[in-house]
Structure formats: structure tokens, C-alpha cells
């Protein structure tokens, strides 16, 4: 019974398909074709895989097997499809949308003649955090972590976090950008480096000197960041003509947080740029910004040397001009190139100045008209090596302090606001082993303090890890 059953089963297994095949000749043909198709498809897939494997094996450093016979391939008859190597690996799909990440590591060794804790830009009301040459000996510069990606077809996001050497973190930039919703228009909102002038918009790791020009330190306390919105529009012309407006919270120096609804700053800028022949290109710009400060306090000492806190309240308006000129023989920057940049800024503050806000608290009018400029040139004289010179100068003007004119106090009660013309001369040479690493030696003679020169030597490194960042002009 068992044997019989087995035979029957085997018989059924054998006969049923045969019978069913025999039953329909056309079906046989169909199945045959299907198998043939399947085989062909697998053959071609295996060939593709082999090809891909071969390509992978030909990594850099291996001598490529130059055996391909010329003429093996003929011109394709159909339009080639875009290859999809990026998404080839299925296992990577969970993190395939990870944003681009890059990290800047930097640090320096500083040798400062004068105690950096006594640093001041004489004649200017201080504000912001990034004033002065930093600390002595070894120090870590801000480590910048940048994360960016497209958000959807309409927006892209950009985030830069800075970790300072004292372990504090700050959001350098964090903005959303839309490109081209209106032709020629780029809209940014969030926190961004303000578009005032030229250098302010450029991250510190891409600067040509260790520190910011004095004029940026005096007027912005380093770099001006705005929490707000920026709109730029490019004219449809063969020459760059760009108009931009920016508005926002205006809480950063020289403005202050006013706990107000609405906006506290407004800015407009204008750029024109083009090439001059194959070897030269330039961009010139003009900017105007208006903001307000309320109880923007700073520390000083009075006429007998007792520390006091003073505060400014009023309008802070400024305008600036900037120029960048770049030269490279025939536009090829690899061997030699030269970059010249200069900026002029003028700030007018009009309002009231309160003296000793925690004590006597006297207050009267205050007006100042102050300006500053710098110019610098950086020459790459051979691949990897560059040398540069920079000259900074500020003019504090003489502030009109109501409390002094009325005779309530004397000019000696406002020593930081005495008239002064800070100057600085800087020379640097840097060496970049690759596009991603740079070492710099810088010497500066800094005369920002009243009647005192400070000789400063810096040895700096800047390294870039991760995504290859493109640089602005």
C-alpha cells in the first residue's frame, strides 16, 4: 500500500505536468520563452554585477588593466539613463538621506606682548564677544560643525554650530533657504551672518588672517549675526547686479535686545561684479543698516578709577563700501594668484548715554560719528604657499557726550571714549598641504589700545573634515 502510494504520488508528479504541457502546445512555447527571458535577464544582470565589481576593484592606487580593445563599444543608439551608483547599496537606505556634514578644527599658539585681558579698542564703546587677540599660549579656536541638506523641493537647510574652547556652544548660523521661487531671488530666514560688507559673511576658517579686521571688531564685536530674514535679487544681466534687503531682531551689537514686537533692524546692500579680461575679476558693494540699542551697557572707570557701568540707548546707523579684486594669470589660480580686498565702514550713533547705571545713574545726550577701514592683499606665489599684508585703521572722532558738555561730569569720567585712532599692521604667510589643511604664521603690531603697541605672533592651523565645502568669491 505504501509502495503503491509512493509510486502513485511520483506518477502524479511526473504525469500531471507532462499531461498539462501536452494538453496545450502554445503554453509550452510561452513558458519556454519565459524561461529564456528569465535566463537572459539573469545573464545580463550577472554581467552588470561583474562589471560593477570590476570597476570597484579598479580603485585608486591599483594600476588599471588597460586591456580594453579600442572600438569594442559602438555609439549608443538610445539616450543613456543616469547611473544610480549612489543608491546602489540597499542596506544604506536608512541613512541615505543623511545631510552633508563637515567639521572645521582649528587652533593656535599665540605670543602676545601685552596682557590680553587689558585689550581694548580705545575710543570705541565695546560690545560683542570677539574683540581682541584671544588668550596666550596654546588655544583651541572655535570648532565648527556644519550640517546641510535639501529639505524638500522648496527649501534647503544649513546649520553651523560652534564649540568654543571654553566648552560653550553657539549657533553660528541656522537658516532655511529658498532659491528661485521668484526668478533670481534667494530667500534666507533663521540666523545668518549678515550680508553687510564683504568679510562679515565669510566664516572665520576661510579668512586670510587669524583675526577679524579691527573695523569689524569695533562695529560688530567680531561678526554680525542676524536672526531674521534676508532676500536677495539678481538682475538678469550678464554683469552681476545684486540687490539685497535684510531685517530681523537686531539684538546683536551694535543693537540690543529691546523686548519689542516687530523688527529692530533694517539693512539694504547692493553688489556689482564682473570679470576684466581672463585674468581679473572684482566685486564692489555698498551697504546701509539701521538698528536701535536700548541700555546697551559697557564697563568703564570714572575719573578716580572706580569701575562703573554705562549704557547707550538710541539709534545706531551705519553704511559701508567694499571691494574685492582677484587676479590669477589667465584665470588659473593653481600656481599664482592675488586677492585684494578693502572695506570702509561709517557708524553714526545718536541717543543718550547713561553714566554709572547701578549708582548715580546720570543720563544725557550722546552722538558719535566713527569710521574705520582696512585693506589687505594676499599673494599665492607658488602652489600651497601664500603671503599677505593687512593694514587697519579706525577713527573714533570725538563723541558729543551731553553729561560732559553740561558740566555734570568731565571727559575723564569716560576714559574709553577719549579720542583715538587705533591702527594695526599685520603680515602673514600660510602653507596649505592640501585643499583641506592650512598652517599660518602671523605677526601683527596692534595699536588699538590708547598709546600702547602690542606685538602679537600667532601660529595657527585650520583643518576641514568631511564634505568638500565650496567657497564664495
Amino acid at each position, binding site marked *: 500500500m505504501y509502495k503503491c502510494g509512493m509510486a502513485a504520488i511520483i506518477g502524479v508528479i511526473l504525469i500531471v505536468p507532462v499531461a498539462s504541457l501536452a494538453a496545450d502546445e502554445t503554453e509550452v512555447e510561452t513558458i519556454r520563452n519565459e524561461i529564456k527571458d528569465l535566463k537572459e535577464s539573469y545573464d545580463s544582470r550577472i554581467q552588470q554585477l561583474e562589471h560593477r565589481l570590476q570597476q570597484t576593484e579598479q580603485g585608486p592606487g591599483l594600476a588599471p588593466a588597460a586591456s580594453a580593445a*579600442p572600438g569594442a563599444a559602438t555609439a549608443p543608439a538610445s539616450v543613456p539613463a543616469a547611473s544610480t551608483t549612489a543608491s546602489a547599496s540597499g542596506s544604506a537606505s536608512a541613512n541615505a538621506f543623511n545631510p552633508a556634514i563637515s567639521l572645521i578644527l582649528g587652533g593656535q599658539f599665540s605670543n602676545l606682548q601685552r596682557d590680553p585681558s587689558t585689550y581694548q579698542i580705545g575710543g570705541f564703546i565695546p560690545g560683542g564677544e570677539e574683540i581682541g587677540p584671544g588668550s596666550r599660549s596654546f588655544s583651541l579656536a572655535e570648532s565648527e560643525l556644519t550640517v546641510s541638506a535639501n529639505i524638500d523641493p522648496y527649501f534647503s537647510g544649513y546649520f553651523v554650530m560652534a564649540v568654543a574652547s571654553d566648552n560653550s556652544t553657539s549657533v553660528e548660523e541656522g537658516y532655511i533657504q529658498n532659491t528661485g521661487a521668484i526668478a533670481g531671488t534667494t530667500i534666507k530666514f533663521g540666523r545668518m551672518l549678515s550680508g553687510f560688507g564683504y568679510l562679515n559673511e565669510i566664516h572665520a576658517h576661510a579668512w586670510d588672517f587669524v583675526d577679524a579686521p579691527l573695523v569689524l571688531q569695533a562695529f560688530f564685536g567680531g561678526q554680525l549675526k542676524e536672526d531674521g530674514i534676508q532676500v536677495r535679487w539678481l538682475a538678469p544681466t550678464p554683469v552681476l547686479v545684486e540687490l539685497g534687503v535684510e531685517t530681523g531682531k537686531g539684538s546683536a551689537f551694535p543693537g540690543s535686545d529691546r523686548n519689542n514686537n516687530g523688527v529692530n533692524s533694517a539693512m539694504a546692500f547692493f553688489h556689482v561684479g564682473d570679470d576684466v579680461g581672463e585674468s581679473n575679476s572684482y566685486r564692489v558693494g555698498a551697504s546701509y543698516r539701521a538698528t536701535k540699542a536700548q541700555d546697551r551697557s559697557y564697563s568703564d572707570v570714572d575719573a578716580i578709577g572706580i569701575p562703573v557701568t554705562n549704557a547707550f540707548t538710541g539709534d545706531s546707523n551705519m553704511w559701508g563700501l567694499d571691494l574685492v579684486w582677484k587676479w590669477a594669470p589667465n584665470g588659473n589660480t593653481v600656481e599664482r594668484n592675488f586677492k585684494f580686498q578693502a572695506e570702509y565702514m561709517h557708524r553714526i550713533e545718536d541717543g543718550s548715554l547713561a553714566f554709572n547705571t547701578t549708582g548715580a545713574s546720570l543720563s544725557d545726550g550722546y552722538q558719535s560719528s566713527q569710521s574705520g577701514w582696512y585693506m589687505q592683499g594676499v599673494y599665492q606665489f607658488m602652489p600651497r604657499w601664500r603671503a599677505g599684508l593687512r593694514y587697519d585703521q579706525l577713527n573714533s572722532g570725538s563723541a558729543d557726550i551731553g553729561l560732559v558738555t553740561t558740566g555734570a561730569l568731565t571727559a575723564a569720567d569716560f576714559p574709553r571714549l577719549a579720542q583715538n585712532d587705533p591702527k594695526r599692521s599685520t603680515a602673514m604667510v600660510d602653507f596649505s598641504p*592640501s585643499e583641506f589643511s592650512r598652517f599660518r604664521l602671523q605677526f601683527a603690531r596692534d595699536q588699538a589700545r590708547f598709546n600702547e603697541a602690542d606685538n602679537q605672533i600667532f601660529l595657527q592651523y585650520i583643518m576641514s573634515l568631511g564634505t568638500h565645502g565650496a567657497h564664495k568669491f
Partner: protein
Amino acid sequence: MNNLNKWTSLAVTIALLLACTPSFAKVNVFACLPEWAALATELGGDKVAVYQASNALQDPHRIEARPSLVARMRSADLAICTGAELEIGWLPVLQQTAGNPKVQPGQPGYIAAADFVDRLEVPARLDRAEGDIHPAGNPHIQLDPHNIAKVGLVLTQRLEQIDAGNAAYYQARSKDFQARWNQAIARWEKEAAPLKGMRIVPYHKDTVYLIKWLGLVEVMNVEPKPGIPPSAGHLSDLVGRLKGGAADVISRSAYQDPKAVVSLGEKTGLPVVELPYTVGGTPGAKDLFGLFDDSIARLKAVKK
């Protein structure tokens, strides 16, 4: 005619001009590199206005995102570049600042040519310790004429899409170009047959497609790692390695500084050849056909 009328008629004229422009406006093509500008001119004829963003004597990795390029990108209907991160140092800035949605990645108005060809040297290991390598493979794809043909088909398709009114024109030009190009390929392969097996030392890894196509052998490069210029020590090491007859020729592309290659040639006694690399690199490389004519002629001239 009073003043008001004058202004009115002027306004009407301007409005008419503006309104009429699109019907005979050319397609604005922004070509990152000379080879794509030449291809766009071949295929687009007088229906396109081609702006070439760089010239053959500029290192394609190291173009500045100049204001003039931003301005040109702003008005482009189509941007054609190599992609595969060759232009990573400048193209993204142009795309992000030009405010032009047509030329963003993924749009029909942006062609990354390297996406449409089989790339060589896709690295198995991604590490910057290997120098400035490109994750998507070697991007210097234009030196295999088969790649030019493939990119040409893509470009024609995109032109038809963007400027549908002239589709037949682009079709005809494409057909004509591909026919002439195939004939030329056959001729070049015949002419270059004696070059097979020639052992070459290029300055940078930017000739691998030519080498593979013509069956040459890349012995080594003058650069120790891609994008890292050779030091004096590395050069003297190369002299030692090349003296024993390990190679037939040292080559450099027109945009590269001749110093290192020339001194290496003098010290090893090997011939040095300057290759155009792209259209305009040498006087002979006037167009895409000239690029290959001249490359092969120059290699043959140094063949012993």
C-alpha cells in the same frame, strides 16, 4: 506729439519687445567646461547661446565662483557640467546663489555629464588620505569619445524638452553629429592602433579615459596622490623609478604647470608630451574633433 504720448509709445514699444523676445530667444546654455560648450555648440547650432564658464588653461577643479559666473548662471536655461564632484568647489555656490530654479540638480535644465557614462576608478575606499579623490569615480570623462556621444544624446534630449518648438532641428543636428562622430571614432581608433601598449606617466589622473580607450598603460602619475603637487623628494624618487625604461612617455595636460614634467623629462630622458585635455588646450584642439585629432597626433609624435 506731446510728452505723454512719447512716453506711452516708448512704453508700448518696450512692452512689445519684451513680449516678443521669448519667441526668438535662444536657449541660454551655461557650460562649466570647454568640452561641454563645444558639444552644446555642435548640437544646438544657432538656436542656443552658449556661455563657457572656464577655459582650457584653467584647472577645472579650481575655478572661482566669480560674480560673472553667478550672473550668467542666473539667466541660464540649461547648465551642462561634468558633475562627479569635479566642480564641487564652485558649481554649488553658483547654483545656490543664482536664484535660478531651472538649473538645480534633478531639473531637466541641469546635466551632470558623468552621470550618464560608465565611470572608471570608482574608489572602493573613501578616505581623504588618498588625496582629492572623487567618490563617484574619475570625473575626467571627456577624453573617451564614446562618452561624448552618450552625453550628446542626453543634451539633445534636454534641448528638445526645454525648447520643444525646435525639437526637429535638434534631432537633425544630433543625427548629423553622431554620424560624423562615429566615423571619426573609427578613424581615430585606426590611427591610434600603433599606440596600443604605450606606457605613459601623466601628471594627474585626468587622462584615464583616453588611456583606456586607446589601450595605453598608465604606469604611475607624477603627483604622489591626486591633487597633491609633487615635492622635490618625490620627483627624484620618480627619476629613479623611471630611469630603467619603465615608461615610454611623460604627459601633462595643457592647464598644468610644465615645470615638474619638463624637469622629470630631462632627468629621465623620456619624451614629454603636452595633451590638450579639452577643447582649446592646444592650437590644434579647436573643436571636439580637433581635441582627439591633436591628442592622438601628439602621442604618435613621441612614439618611438
